[in-house]
């Protein structure tokens, strides 16, 4: 039986003005378990707290009920008080007789009656309270960043700067991501490589950062502070530590007609290659699908020319296991396939390209060495049509497009159009748009400059059909303002393809038990207030894996995610919320319902040996809650059909006791 003390606060006249506090204290005296009851002007004051502390000692109290203001105000205060006097802080319950009683009722009698009932409910609950101790778990002081684009790079640099080791896992042979493929960046038009490559070098030189390039995450186990991750380092058939990146092997490789991914297939690379000049790590990689030595065992030229002796045709995939305290997802985006949009003749004409391909076409390191030449005949295009929202804002067919706005296209299209007019004033540039969306610092000014200073022709309307004929692309479009159908003979058509999360995101989300929306973007813990955390504790989001973003936004989110990671890694131990779910293993029927409703992946199932009533032993599959991951929502408790799952601090019996007390 508990020994409960009741402490009724006047809160000056805030409570005492509408509630007869003496009567309340008196009435609660006769409740089961109550051995002491009193009232005082300000319970939260030092003097008030001392009353509680003394009473605990004097009356050997095991439970406390404070009838006062909202628990959101002073629950923490009174818990500390209790703990200071030597009883478990979770033996304290608050009856909210200010915000939810004295302040909303005018009449002394009704106020007092209600306060007594609220007090009774709190007493009934405390009678069933049990001491709770928050779990503690150690924190591995190392972070994993999945994805080595600008988001992953920025996050890794910030975490490393705070002194924690970071590993970056990147599937491509080099870090840099999409930004490395861009030519210029809006709205300032500085060149992407000039601002990105120094950061890549910083990553390479930072002692706290390890780069696993050409690698992928194979398996993730564990929970916040304690993730066990297996990383698969794919064989690149070149010894990374030895290769100097001199490029002699690349020059001599006879297989030189392999479509170059970095330039989106618009030119060729060799079977052994370094994606681009500033690649990090700057080491060669052999494409096993193209290399004659690996396919047929004939050739071996690269091995002969490599003075460092870095080539190793026998290299195997390597698996690395590492422990991490936090994981940052930075898997980024890709433009969607244009296959379903062949009204724009993307598959029929080389001169219909996506915006990312256009970036390569205007880049000095691109297939045309920065000269704007159209891919089919390498002639200078005189009329260029840009089509916006290709696959964005498309609700008609999920297979075809995406319902959301891809956010970055309006700005990069303005950039492309402006750059063309700047470099090649003899070129006519049309941009077909539904709406021009330019929220962002200096964004709208940028777009207006494209129109007003550079003479880009913005046309409100869409393109309906592109028909290649002869060396022209006949573009049929609507001009909604002029109420006309336009027919333009274009030389080049550029499609602003919608962007979608990288395909690796979904299997990764499954490994992380992190949630995703219907578009495969990672869901944040709270859309407004916790935008860089995943609902799964210890998993953070950086960049476009969470939603379409431009570079400035990506970098801010990347740094925000890093600061959250640092906040986690500085702790030696994680103190959990003790109000977590816990199953009664004897009652659990192993149905997995709780596992499915848990938004945090806190519940797993385990085969455990049980002593049966006849003293035989049996193996049963029972639910296990990881208290470090559980957030204490209670969804599982109600979903549980066998009544095995309960929530500490809000147990079914406690809530029913409150109901009973209220309804008595």
């Amino acid at each position: 039986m508990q020994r409960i003390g009741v402490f009724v606060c006047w809160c000056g006249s805030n409570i005492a003005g509408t509630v007869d506090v003496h009567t309340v204290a008196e009435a609660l005296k006769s409740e089961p378990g109550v051995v002491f009851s009193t009232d005082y002007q300000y319970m939260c004051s030092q003097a008030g707290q001392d009353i509680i502390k003394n009473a605990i000692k004097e009356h050997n109290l095991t439970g406390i009920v404070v009838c006062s203001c909202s628990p959101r105000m002073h629950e923490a205060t009174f818990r500390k008080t209790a703990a200071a006097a030597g009883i478990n802080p979770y033996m304290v319950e608050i009856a909210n007789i200010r915000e939810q009683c004295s302040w909303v009722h005018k009449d002394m009698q009704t106020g007092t009656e209600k306060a007594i009932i609220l007090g009774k409910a709190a007493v009934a609950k405390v009678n069933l309270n049990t001491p709770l101790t928050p779990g503690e778990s150690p924190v591995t002081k190392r972070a994993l960043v999945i994805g080595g684009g600008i988001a992953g790079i920025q996050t890794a640099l910030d975490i490393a700067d705070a002194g924690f080791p970071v590993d970056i896992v990147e599937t491509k042979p080099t870090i840099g991501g999409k930004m490395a493929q861009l030519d210029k960046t809006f709205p300032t038009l500085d060149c992407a490589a000039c601002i990105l490559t120094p950061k890549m070098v910083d990553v390479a030189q930072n002692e706290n950062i390890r780069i696993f390039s050409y690698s992928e995450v194979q398996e993730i186990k564990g929970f916040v502070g304690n993730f066990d991750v297996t990383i698969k380092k794919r064989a690149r058939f070149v010894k990374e530590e030895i290769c100097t990146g001199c490029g002699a092997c690349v020059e001599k490789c006879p297989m030189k007609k392999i479509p170059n991914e970095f330039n989106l297939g618009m030119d060729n690379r060799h079977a052994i290659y370094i994606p681009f000049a500033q690649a990090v790590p700057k080491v060669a990689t052999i494409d096993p699908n193209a290399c004659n030595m690996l396919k047929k065992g004939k050739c071996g030229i690269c091995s002969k020319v490599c003075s460092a002796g870095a080539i190793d045709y026998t290299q195997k995939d390597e698996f690395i296991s590492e422990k991490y305290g936090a994981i940052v997802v930075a898997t980024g985006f890709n433009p969607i396939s244009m296959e379903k949009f062949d009204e724009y003749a993307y598959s029929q004409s080389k001169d219909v390209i996506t915006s990312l391909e256009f970036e390569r076409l205007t880049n000095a390191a691109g297939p045309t060495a920065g000269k704007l030449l159209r891919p089919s005949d390498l002639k200078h295009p005189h009329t260029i049509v840009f089509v916006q929202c290709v696959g964005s804002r498309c609700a008609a067919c999920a297979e075809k497009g995406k319902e959301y706005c891809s956010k970055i296209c309006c700005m990069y299209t303005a950039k492309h159009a402006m750059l063309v007019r700047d470099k090649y004033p003899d070129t006519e540039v049309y941009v077909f748009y539904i709406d021009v969306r330019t929220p962002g610092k200096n964004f709208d000014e940028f777009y207006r400059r494209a129109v007003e200073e550079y003479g880009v022709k913005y046309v409100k309307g869409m393109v309906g059909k592109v028909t290649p004929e002869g060396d022209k692309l006949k573009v049929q479009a609507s001009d909604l303002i002029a109420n006309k159908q336009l027919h333009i003979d274009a030389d080049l058509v550029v499609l602003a393809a919608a962007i979608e999360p990288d395909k690796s995101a979904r299997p990764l989300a499954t490994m992380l038990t992190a949630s995703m929306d219907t578009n495969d973007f990672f869901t944040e813990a709270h859309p407004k207030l916790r935008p860089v955390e995943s609902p799964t504790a210890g998993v953070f989001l950086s960049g476009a894996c969470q939603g379409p973003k431009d570079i400035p936004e990506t970098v801010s989110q990347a740094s925000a995610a890093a600061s959250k990671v640092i906040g986690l890694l500085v702790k030696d131990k994680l103190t959990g919320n003790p109000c977590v779910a816990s199953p009664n293993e004897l009652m659990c029927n192993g149905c997995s319902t709780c596992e499915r409703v848990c938004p945090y992946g806190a519940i797993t199932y385990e085969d455990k040996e049980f002593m049966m009533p006849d003293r035989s032993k049996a193996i049963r599959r029972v639910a296990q809650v990881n208290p470090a991951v559980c957030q204490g929502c209670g969804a599982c408790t109600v979903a549980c059909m066998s009544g095995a799952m309960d929530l500490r601090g809000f147990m079914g019996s406690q809530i029913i006791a409150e109901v009973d007390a209220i309804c008595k």
Partner: protein
Amino acid sequence: MQVNEYKPLIVAFCCNWCSYAGADLAGNNRLAYPADVKIIRVPCSCRVNPMFILRAFQRGADGVIICGCHPGDCHYTSGNYYTRRRMALLFSMLDYLGIERERTRLEWVSAAEGAKFAATMNDFVEKVTALGENKRLEDLRCKR
């Protein structure tokens, strides 16, 4: 004050993050609602087991209201969606048992909606008062 005026007994389950805070805000702004409403704090509306509601009716409650965060705003991401589905089933079952539909309610009240909380409670108490005492599920062994 009228002596024999009928006073309903209302149990309100409020989620800690939105609705309980909404009720506190109603108090901060001194927005009155009847004292018949007694609030029980739960971490999330999805912690409300239908058993609690049945228990309340059994013990003589005249109305039960569950308040949670607005759809999409749940502190625990998806808890209020579970609640919505569970309560739809429970309410229709109660309806079948003859507990009037107006005696149960599910409302979304955010932490900023003190006024909505008070208005909701005023309205709910009014509706339940109009229905009178709930006898259908009451367990006579625990007569008030």
